[in-house]
């Protein structure tokens, strides 16, 4: 009985610790892609995948953050492919970019093939990776660096339609 109580106490303590670590980063799991699309269906959506361990991602993020702050005509949603247990480290990095208030997700499902397949069945896991989704439902994917001129061109087309 005493052991059971100790276990319970440890469990309650552990919940507090774990939740304090998670921060404001939502889990990205099976079906999350469709949920995000539905929530942002009325506006152009830039869904951007990145990782702490991906140098090109880290290089391009400040530019993407600045662009998103300067343009109010699309929604930016960020998904890190780092496991959600790494949220503390992810949040620290997001803070340096001023992206703490963005819609942030982290992988919470290790069946990564299925997560990728939902976004783009031809995506082999390259990072960074971006899905550009228009209100009409059309999806354009970009492997690697998201060039500002390409993003501008995509947004211009979206607005003229």
């Amino acid at each position: 009985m005493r052991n059971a109580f100790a276990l319970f106490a440890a469990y309650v303590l552990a919940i507090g610790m774990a939740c304090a670590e998670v921060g404001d980063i939502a889990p990205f799991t099976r079906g999350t892609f469709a949920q995000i699309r539905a929530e942002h269906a009325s506006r152009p959506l830039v869904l951007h995948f990145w990782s702490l361990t991906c140098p090109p991602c880290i290089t391009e993020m400040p530019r993407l953050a600045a662009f998103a702050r300067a343009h109010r005509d699309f929604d930016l949603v960020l998904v890190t492919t780092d496991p959600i247990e790494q949220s503390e480290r992810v949040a620290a990095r997001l803070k340096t970019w001023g992206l703490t208030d963005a819609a942030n997700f982290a992988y919470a499902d290790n069946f990564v093939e299925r997560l990728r397949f939902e976004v783009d069945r031809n995506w082999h896991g390259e990072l960074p990776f971006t899905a550009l989704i228009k209100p009409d439902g059309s999806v354009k994917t970009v492997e690697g660096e998201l060039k500002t001129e390409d993003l501008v061109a995509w947004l211009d087309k979206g607005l003229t339609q």
Partner: protein
Amino acid sequence: MIRPTCRFVRTTAIAASCLASSLALAHDPSMHGSHAMSGMSPHAGACTEPVPQCASSATPLFDKEGALRVIYAVGGRVYVARSGDDGRTFQPPVAISSAPANIDESNEGRPTLVMSQAGVMAAAWSIWRDKQWNAMVLFSRSLDGKTFSPPRPLAKSVSQRFPSLGFASDGTLWVTWLDKRNIASAKAAGDTYEGAALALSVSHDDGANFSPSVIVSDRTCECCRISLAFDPDGGPVASWRQIYGKNFRDHEVGRFGADAKSVNGIRVSEDNWAIDACPHHGPSLSIDAAGTRHIAWYTGGGVRKGLFYAHEAGQNAAFSAPQPFGDNERTAQHPQVLAHVGALVRAWKEFDGETTAILFQASYDNGDAWTPAKTIATTRDASDHPILIAKGERIFLSWLTKEEGYRLMPLPLTPER
């Protein structure tokens, strides 16, 4: 526009996630404080026992007695487990690293284990060592197959990842990895420096001492593992993803110089994959008894896209034309190639939206004609890369999956070999 989203979904899902993580944390007395949650393992919330099934990758080796050894990481520690029955059961593992660390447990950056002809085991892996995600390659060896030396770094450079190692037939231990030491000096000189570099170090005393590491090739891709094999005369040959021109990330195969300070390589094929990204998709190299080098790789190039195979008749020979394989509609990925006693096998992973399968083909004419693709194993949850490994005359698939655990499966090869 930056604005928060999915508030309701987020709150409830985080609660569920916290619950799962906390349960794992509370139930394992071997975990201490925040380190328990710091590993990169995507399985961390589900499973914390030091067994292969709780790892995200498991790399196999057959020892001198023919027993299987598997190296893997769980909860920030690296373990080696021995199996006397080809992976059906494992003896209690030996922990190589005592202090928990933030280990690179990605399928690409996996811990790796090799053995010399005399039975010395050598292991290498990398850890994330600071908040800037700089990494460090660690090395450990075992002279008796039971105890391992304390892990130690092989270089003092700013960041090292993706170690690959192997014993040559003369007993020399070759270690290569991706290293970022030249980036800072290039930037200081006003040059841009994409990617990382191929570093090399050798040991002539079974890993007791190593030569100072040197960079043998600058501007490699920074996030794809290196494949290391040996020519019949014992010369070490590596294959890796190199950056050509501005940003074509294609493959190179090259033999290291006997002085361990150079590499003599050629480009396998001009796939022209122009991408500023981390493909997380390294090549696979195997060299047969006649010295023909066989390579399998993935490219998303402008010239070709998918999995490809080619061979080179020997040093300085030209590579054969890239031969496509696998089903691009099923995201064919992570190819492996192995040449062994007259047979050549290639295996890879495919995913159809629900099920992940490992398929293989065999060739008995040096890679010109191949048997029809055949599925050897499947799973319906997370899985490691497939690995091919040989024992005696047989070739096995080594595959760790979340649902089924570790499996070692002999490939049903046709008898005309």
